[in-house]
């Protein structure tokens, strides 16, 4: 069963990250690296994303006409910072992985549609 883990965070999480010392930051990245190494066999495509300030959105109007705007589509304080596609037995296994995610913030688990 495939799921996508969406690694999310809000302004507070971002501020906490900014406030970390270089040593703390290095330690956190090491934890994240270890997490990916531990679950390597279950992880498919995965990427960290540039911040929301770099986002550009194309929205479609009522007539289907594309409108390009600066910024992320999802408004508000929460952002998606990265994602990982995983292949595990069921939701409990996905939850076990998500609960040990060292990056903090929040992890949203979305099952991938199968046809």
């Amino acid at each position, binding site marked *: *069963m495939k799921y996508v883990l969406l690694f999310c965070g809000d302004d507070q999480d971002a501020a906490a990250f900014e406030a970390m010392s270089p040593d703390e930051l290095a330690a956190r990245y090491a934890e994240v690296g270890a997490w990916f190494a531990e679950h390597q066999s279950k992880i498919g495509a995965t990427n960290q994303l540039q911040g929301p300030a770099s986002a550009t959105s194309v929205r479609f109007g009522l007539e289907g006409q594309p409108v390009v705007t600066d910024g992320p589509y999802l408004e508000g304080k929460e952002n998606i910072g990265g994602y990982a596609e995983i292949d595990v*037995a*069921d*939701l*409990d296994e996905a*939850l*076990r992985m998500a609960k040990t995610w060292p990056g903090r913030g929040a992890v949203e*688990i979305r*099952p991938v549609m199968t046809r």
Partner: protein
Amino acid sequence: MARSRGGGDTPGHDALTTTRDALAAVFREEAGRLAASVTRILGDFDASEEVVQDALLAAWQQWPIEGLPDRPGAWLWTVARRRAIDVLRRDMRYQERLRALSFPVEQAADDDRLMLIFTCCHPALSPEAQVALTLRTVCGLSTAEIANAFLASEAAIIQRLTRARRKIAEARIPYRISADDELAERLAGVLAVIYLLFNEGYLCSAGAAPQRRDLTDDAEWLAALLASLMPAEPEVLGLLALIRLHRARAATRFDAEGRLVLLRHQDRARWNKAEIAAAADLVVRAARLRRPGPYQIQAAIVACHAEAASWASTDWLQILLLYDALLRQQPSPVIRLHRAVAVGQVLGPQAALDETDDLAGDLDRYHIYHATRAEFLRQLGRGYEARQADERALGLTANPAERALLEQRLT
């Protein structure tokens, strides 16, 4: 414990009610068992629902006419099995499962209901969905009964159940008991659902229409089932004891006019002593397992009250110590407020009032907070402030029984 159904007005009505009650009891015993077995074989929560419903519907239609079969479980299983084979034949993916279903004519002897309960109470479902799904699937309530019990529309309940089942299928919530390292956490979730169900039934039991299903009965049944399936889990025993201790005294909570009667004024002669003693034994049995938890401690507190001959002769020091233990496990302002009542009995009203002072920030909008303070103020002879506190409490509750009690105090 027999469920009260209001006074029987005619013998015919009584007989009908008894048949319906007997059927409901058999259904509750068999529905979950059947759902658990079918789900295990089909491996699909959603498909099994259809099969189980068809079997239960057939029973509802035939049993009142043909009489209760000798082995209702086997009867249901035979019907469900036939229906399940139809479902499987429609779908080529299920050929292997079809073979599994063709041979064993008997229903599996081991109780799969534990898996069913854990799936229904999965934390990935909303608490409301967990409660509705447990009542529907484990206890075999109809959607109309659930709607009635929660004063919701049947359409809303059906939608809630449909969404929950869809999520179980789409997100693949597993049908099994949690791994050992997660069991404690998941079990806490299951117990929370049963306790929520109990509280829901307990709060609305005042003047409840007789045709409304008594959810405290279902909550007790679920807790007893869980205790029989997990006899070494002390918190399960604690919750069962807690529910039974409350139910053994439920009859004295309201007077003949439906007014709330406070614990100190309740007629203790009408409490069910045998039930109380049995529940207190359960608390002791749980304590011997040496893993204390919030339900066990709450049950122990209620047992202290239930076994006391009067309000005055209650072992308040023991209750105070138990509240201290409970606060260590579950720090909460409401528990501190309850503890203050015990403080008042052990150390006097001034000490109790002092205890409540720094709860104002958390509990200022909670009517019981002000009503409790009013009691302490009255005991201290501060009548004017007591009255103000009671008025504040009155302004914060819409519950008619509570309002009547407060209004009585103010006149």
